[in-house]
């Protein structure tokens, strides 16, 4: 009996040491080594909230092959939590990682991380003002941040009184969509002061600028479906149209607005007020949509059920499903780097 107790106490002492083995979530393996394609379609996968499983998939549009989790393969760490958007400037890919509160700069040719900036609350989209200054919209911060990426410091925070999303440059103004206020806010890109606000009849969910320097805004009017508004550079509303009851995503290409619903892809010639259905797609949960450079094909991201790896589908304009790729969780952002 006594021997049993001694053995027990000794064994307890021996086994009380805990090995440092990984015991967190286990995902499918990344590639051990990857060769980054020279031309690529980059798919930003948001990942699940608070799971830090955002990722970047890349597709070779020449051979139509794909690589998953390219960022993790090259940097040995995941990119973060909720990859919201991309911006490509030269050879630098700017990735906005919303719930990691940071912006990461990535070498587009090697996919190696260049640097990151963590001075943000819940960043959503970025726009370059010049080579060193970016403006960053935010979900919770109630201001637009002007940030110097060379000095790694905040230059100014412009109060926006609400949740800001997409933004772009129109002449000397930074135009930012304010979802809480259903408005576009115009900020002087030199003085960084709010100059004016244009109230809309719907949420400004998607924001584009056409070849005539007009702004196109697409968004939902509660209980009334989705609308389109065309605004010139004097902030005058030129056109306001009802589109569909629901829209999953929209893109502008050669002054035609393309959008997808849960079932179909449409083309809206807003100059002539002509909307036509192009084809029915095969996505279950369309979550990202973009026309390729040169207009050869359409790329549609399918988030499926949000808790499975998604798909990227490539269609011809006639509606033929040309290619399907399994990508990361909740694929959304699309960038063409060729």
């Amino acid at each position, binding site marked *: 009996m006594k021997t*049993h107790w001694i*053995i*027990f106490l000794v*064994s*307890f002492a021996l*086994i*009380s040491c*805990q090995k*440092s083995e*990984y*015991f*967190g*979530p*286990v*995902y*499918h393996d990344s590639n051990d080594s990857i060769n980054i394609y020279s031309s690529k379609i980059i798919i930003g996968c948001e990942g699940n909230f*608070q*799971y*830090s*499983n955002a990722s970047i998939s890349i597709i070779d549009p020449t051979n139509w092959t794909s690589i998953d989790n390219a960022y993790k393969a090259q940097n040995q*760490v995941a990119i973060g*939590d909720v990859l919201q958007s991309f911006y490509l400037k030269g050879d630098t890919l700017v990735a906005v990682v919303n*719930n*990691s*509160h940071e912006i990461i700069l990535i070498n587009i040719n090697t996919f190696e991380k260049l640097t990151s900036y*963590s001075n943000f*609350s*819940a960043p959503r989209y970025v726009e370059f003002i010049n080579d060193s200054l970016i403006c960053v919209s935010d*979900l*919770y911060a109630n201001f637009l941040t002007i940030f110097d990426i060379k000095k790694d410091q905040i230059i100014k925070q412009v109060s926006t009184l609400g949740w800001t999303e997409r933004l772009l440059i129109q002449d000397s103004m930074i135009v930012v969509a304010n979802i809480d206020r259903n408005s576009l806010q115009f900020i002087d890109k030199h003085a960084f002061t709010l100059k004016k606000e244009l109230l809309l009849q719907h949420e400004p*969910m998607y924001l584009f600028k056409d070849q005539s320097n007009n702004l196109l805004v697409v968004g*939902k009017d509660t209980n009334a479906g989705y609308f389109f508004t065309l605004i010139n550079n004097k902030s005058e509303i030129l056109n306001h149209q009802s589109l569909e009851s*629901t*829209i*999953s995503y929209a893109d502008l290409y050669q002054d035609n607005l393309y959008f997808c619903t*849960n079932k179909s892809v449409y083309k809206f010639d807003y100059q002539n007020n002509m909307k036509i259905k192009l084809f029915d797609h095969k996505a*279950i*949960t369309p*979550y990202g949509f973009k026309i390729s450079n040169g207009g050869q094909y359409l790329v549609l991201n399918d*988030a*499926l*059920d*949000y*808790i*499975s*790896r998604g798909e990227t589908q490539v269609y011809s304009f006639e509606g033929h499903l040309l290619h399907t790729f399994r990508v990361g*969780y909740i694929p959304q952002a699309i960038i063409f780097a060729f």
Partner: protein
Amino acid sequence: MRQISFIFLLLPLLLKAQSDSIKILPVFSIIDSLKNPLKNSFSVEFKQKDMIPKLNQNLSEMLQNQSGVAIKSYGPGQLATPTFRGGDANQTIVLWNGAKLNSPSLGSIDFSLIPTDLFQDISLISSSSSNLFGVGGIGGGVLLNSYPKTDDFECKLGLGVASFGQNQFQFKLNLPIKNLLEGKFALLFQTNETNAENNFSFLDIYNEPYSLQIQTHSRFKMRSSQIGLIYKFKKIDFTLINWSNYANRQIPQPINLHESKSQFQQDTNLRSQFIVNYNPSQYQSFRWMIFSDFSVNRYQDTIAEIDNPNRYNNFQSQLDWAIQFNKARGLSAMNQLNTNYTQAKSDNFNGQNEQLGFGTLHQLKLKSSKARYDIAAGMRTLIQDSLFKVLPFIHLSVRSKKLLIPEFYVNYSKSARFPALNELYWNPGGNILLRPEEALNAELGAKTRSWKKISFETSFYYSIAENRIRWIPNGSLFSPMNVAESKTFGSDSKLTWYILDQNKVRIKLSWLQSFVQSTGKINQQTNWKSLSYIPNIKSAMSLKADFKEFSGFVNYSFVSKRFITNDESAYMPQYHLLNFGSIYSKHGVTLMVNIDNVLNTHYQVIAWRPMAGRTFNFSMTFSL
């Protein structure tokens, strides 16, 4: 694994364990016997006196350590919900003396806010028998019973401290007063309070190299009290009982995100019951219960500028009556009328929302004269929000007069869960067109009678569910939709073995295990895949030894890997936990020392949410 093998080699050690009894519930009335699920479906009962006397243990801890139920816990002092037989958290009904406690807004209830000390007995029931008790138990249910006792005096004061800044206080008084107004009277007052900093160390595996960190912003405080009165006079008794619960917690960020101290939650529940039992004869009984629940759940996020108090008032009324027609043939019937009214308010509702439901229960039971078989059939109905469901069930059990031949049972039922208020009215995204979730359940089981002090029971079940509600994208929003279906098959087993049972020495081994294979699909286009966060295997084993004033125990629990996506592309690894404890009790003073997670296992139940390592608990209890 090597560690566990070593431990099992040392099993003949005198150590303590847990609480599991297959004894029949004491029959208070025909109603209780007709609702007794033990005979015809798998269930587990825990009596308070058999539970580990750990001060202020909550229901999630108890089930994790002592049952085959898997618990999804976000950490010490954080949200914890169960998964029964592949069911979601809102597919487990929790009843207190027959009243449903599940939030009408969410459909679920936080098991970390239910202290087990307040209840004389706690039972786990499976989906097969949940219709006997209420609607919504597609996975199963938990029955909590607390009441003043007219025959037992009890006065107890408990104080405890534990690792990571935890302290506990407990007081209980059950005071019977006999011969008052020619009847029996008893007063119950019990309260417990837990304060915990939860500043445990954990291994940060998100950043390399791994390093030990201290959990922050995880403080938890809860106070739970019950006051009850019971008066028994001849064939009638009246019970009035009030249960108040206040909890205040800080919510830490997962370890994969930057530390933030912006999230908080307060929960307040004020529950009251009035119960009348009337037994005019040994062949009839009546029970009338009314219940009210005032609840506030307040979530705050100072960064996102969220301060949303979600409130509801819930009122329930049940009238049960049972009659035994013929004692010789054992034919009896039970009926119930019930109503349920809820008024709820939230910043995310369009104002205030209400819900009114009416339901019935009808059961016929036939027992053979020599108790060789019994068969029960019936149905539960509910009409609510213009939705109507009829939920039939049938149970059969057969037993041989030979001791070594097990008793067999088989049952079949249809169960349902009605949409919760948030699913109907949440703004934005709520869906008033939702239909109830439905499931068909079948079960086959066998249990032995005690032979050489060993009893064993196992059951096999199969369940198909459809119209499962999932929040899925609907344009730019998420909305709940009836989209998913699932299939679940599995088995539950339990073993109790009194290894030694003499005057001064007792050694008891208890083992419970669940095996679940649950697959689902979100829509017609997707394939059948394992449902997320449901382990295939959950087991718990306990060994308890009593020798004079001393007791010792050891608990071992194992949870197999769980997929965390709907396409089986990611999973959480398995883990196992070991707890030790020793108790000394004499002259009304009980000293207890126990160590949870003896092996200091680093593990996560939910991805990136650390759990506490080795935890020391010391408590002292004084009893009159």
